[in-house]
């Protein structure tokens, strides 16, 4: 080998390193950089959405109106939901996918790196636009995140901005999803067959298809709202021959797959973490894949269980009730598989494992109330009460969010090369778990006792449980500051992580050095 050739190699290395300064983050096409951007963005939005939740809970601490006007309260409930769904859970999952999917399948980067950059960088603009509606005449959207017309059409100047920002978030999600599908389809290392892929990759693969299938449906629905409001159409306006219920059908045809988009990647994360800390292979890998696929397929035929009270024909109600109940079967299989993975393993309880176990228990509690909600005759009592609020917060907060937090603790040593503060991590888990239950469990009770959701003030018999929920909300909100401290400490330094990081961990990501080099797998790994 002559000197000139070595020199070229050397030059090449520099050329492909990150650009210095701020422009590194603006122009980056590196999957790790973009993953990092997504994750920090999601954390920022978590605190913004959480702040809105605390405004809601402050008003609900006691009966009577004390803090905010009812119209502003409605803006808070609407924006809290939009931000938590589109700004926190979805970007966090895409961030994790960006970081981990290429590494886990032995690829050098995502398949479409420039589109990757774009799909992240339109997000901050979308959310700036969405948040700016709060300062416009008439305020932000106040008709609930479900945007049911005719109420949503009563919105003020912010309405078209909201619609446009939803379009931007949708485009971002679709591009992210296409990128993940293209990466998984094309860039797997030799020997990485579909049935050898890690479950996180599998669940994201399925999630990406759901996204591609339903985000355009949402875009269509909100565009019809826009033309109803400004261009004289009457898709959903009864006075013009339109049908307000049709919007609900279209919306939930998007909305139900959407709720699985918000949970399937967490299923994948937990399926990575539990085997590692049980030091035992995942039980029923193939059935996990089939269960996830069946959940995804069923999600397309159950949408109307969100609207049992709209006055569907009996046959429709029966169909959607039975179809919805069926989802309990594959979901149950997943939970049983996790328990069987732990069974006769050799468990240790580091922070990622604690969050994963918390996920399994509390997600399952949300699943139980889900089965109850599926029963149409009883749903007439539960519908639009706090029982529903308790249900979906159990599957989304100690469900999806705990899954994301578990993933961060699990993989952050690989990202930064440093171990996080285990003691603080455990404190974070226990404080979060206690307060999240204090926050959401009493909501079951007030809901059953008859408290409707989305109300700024309530009858005095609901006061005690609401006070408890508010205490839980503040406790949970402030305990997330511990998380930020752990993250910052870990980024700055700490005990050096080994390449293996966790004793029982298996998979390609643990064959890379910690921190993972800027370009991983320049030599293609082989999976046997």
């Amino acid at each position, binding site marked *: 080998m002559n000197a000139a050739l070595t020199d070229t190699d050397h030059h090449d290395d520099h050329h492909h390193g990150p650009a210095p300064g701020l422009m590194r983050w603006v122009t980056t096409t590196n999957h790790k950089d973009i993953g990092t951007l997504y994750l920090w963005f999601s954390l920022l939005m978590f605190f913004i959405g959480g702040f809105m939740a605390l405004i809601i809970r402050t008003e609900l601490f006691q009966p009577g109106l004390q803090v905010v006007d009812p119209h502003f309260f409605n803006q808070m409930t609407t924006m809290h939901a939009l931000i938590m769904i589109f700004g926190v859970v979805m970007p966090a999952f895409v961030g994790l996918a960006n970081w981990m999917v290429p590494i886990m399948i032995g690829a050098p980067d995502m398949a479409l790196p420039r589109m990757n950059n774009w799909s992240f960088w339109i997000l901050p603009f979308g959310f700036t636009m969405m948040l700016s509606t709060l300062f416009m005449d008439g305020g932000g959207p106040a008709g609930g995140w479900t945007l049911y017309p005719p109420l949503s059409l009563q919105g003020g100047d912010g309405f078209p901005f909201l619609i446009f920002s939803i379009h931007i978030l949708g485009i971002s999600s679709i591009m992210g999803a296409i990128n993940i599908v293209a990466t998984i389809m094309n860039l797997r290392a030799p020997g990485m067959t579909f049935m050898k892929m890690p479950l996180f990759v599998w669940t994201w693969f399925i999630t990406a298809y759901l996204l591609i299938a339903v985000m355009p449906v949402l875009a269509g629905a909100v565009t019809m709202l826009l033309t109803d409001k400004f261009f004289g159409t009457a898709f959903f306006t009864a006075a013009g021959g339109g049908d307000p219920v049709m919007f609900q059908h279209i919306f939930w045809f998007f909305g139900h797959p959407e709720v699985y988009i918000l949970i399937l990647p967490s299923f994948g994360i937990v399926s990575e973490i539990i085997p590692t800390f049980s030091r035992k292979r995942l039980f029923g890998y193939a059935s996990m894949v089939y269960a996830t696929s069946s959940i995804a397929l069923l999600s397309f035929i159950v949408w109307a269980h969100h609207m049992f009270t709209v006055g569907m024909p009996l046959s429709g109600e029966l169909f959607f009730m039975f179809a919805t109940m069926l989802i309990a*079967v594959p979901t149950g299989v997943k939970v049983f598989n996790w328990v069987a993975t732990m069974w006769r393993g050799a468990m240790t309880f580091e922070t990622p494992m604690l969050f994963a176990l918390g996920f399994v228990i509390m997600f399952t509690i949300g699943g139980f109330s889900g*089965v109850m909600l599926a029963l149409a005759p009883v749903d007439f009592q539960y519908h639009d009460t706090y029982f529903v609020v308790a249900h979906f917060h159990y599957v989304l907060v100690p469900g999806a969010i705990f899954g994301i937090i578990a993933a961060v603790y699990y993989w952050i040593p690989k990202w930064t090369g440093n171990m996080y503060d285990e003691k603080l991590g455990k404190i974070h888990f226990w404080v979060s778990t206690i307060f999240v239950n204090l926050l959401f469990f009493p909501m079951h009770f007030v809901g059953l*006792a008859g408290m409707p959701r989305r109300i700024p003030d309530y009858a005095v018999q609901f006061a005690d449980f609401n006070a408890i929920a508010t205490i839980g909300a503040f406790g949970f909100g402030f305990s997330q500051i511990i998380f930020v401290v752990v993250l910052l400490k870990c980024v700055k330094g700490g005990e050096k992580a080994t390449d293996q990081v966790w004793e029982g961990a298996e998979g390609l990501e643990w064959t890379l050095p910690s921190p993972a080099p800027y370009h991983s797998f320049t030599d293609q790994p082989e999976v046997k």
Partner: protein
Amino acid sequence: MRLVIKALASIMVLSAALLSPVVMADWAVNMPKGVTDISHKVYDMHMLAFWIMCVVAFGVFGAMTYSIIKHRKSKGVTPATFHESTAVEVVWTIIPFIILIVLALPAARTLIAQEDDSNSELTIKITGYQWKWQYEYPDSGVSFFSALAEESRQARVMGSGIDVNDVEHYLLDVDKPLVIPVDTKVRFLLTANDVIHSWWVPDFAIKKDAIPGFINTMWTHVNETGTYRGQCTELCGRDHGFMPVVVEVVEKSEFNQWLASQVEAKESGQQLAATN
């Protein structure tokens, strides 16, 4: 300070409530049984589902807890190597399926009963407005609005200085309640004039959306006289939380008298208008 004490007391009562079913009764932690045959069926269905879920939870969480206690590395166990078992997986696919059938059959029966609105003896039309209800008795031409009671209306204003705990039935009282007869199958026709509302009385276990351009039907057959309260349950704008539903269920004779007096009041009102 009072709030803090109250909050701490609430936490203590909550922990006590979880241990003692007697205390739980005072805290209204469950769905009301209600006063109609349908509401009893719904309540039974709810409790059946609840107990089945408890049994499943006991099994799943029990196995998890056992595993967490026994199968930990600090106990010096060596992990097993099994990672699949077709027999076990088939069993735990079939068992949930059977449980679901146990739930689905009574649920379908209850649903079919709920949707059977034939042979009603009285029809009432309910129209939702932002933010009040209109009740019409089409057979007698009686019609009136029902909005939040004055006392609640004053107390709910921010900075009103009124302690809402002193207001009787705060937010659950109206100026003029709907009146229906006991032991009668009453059919409701629901629609709305502006946005979607939803009419709910928990004690009757009926809730249905009132949608502009649609007429939905539902019915009830109340077995006990009394005053029953509910609320609008579909977000309908600023004052969504302030449009309660109050239904007075009275003896049939009393209902007929009431309806006659309403008809009379309406006719004298019309005469008054005509003479002017």
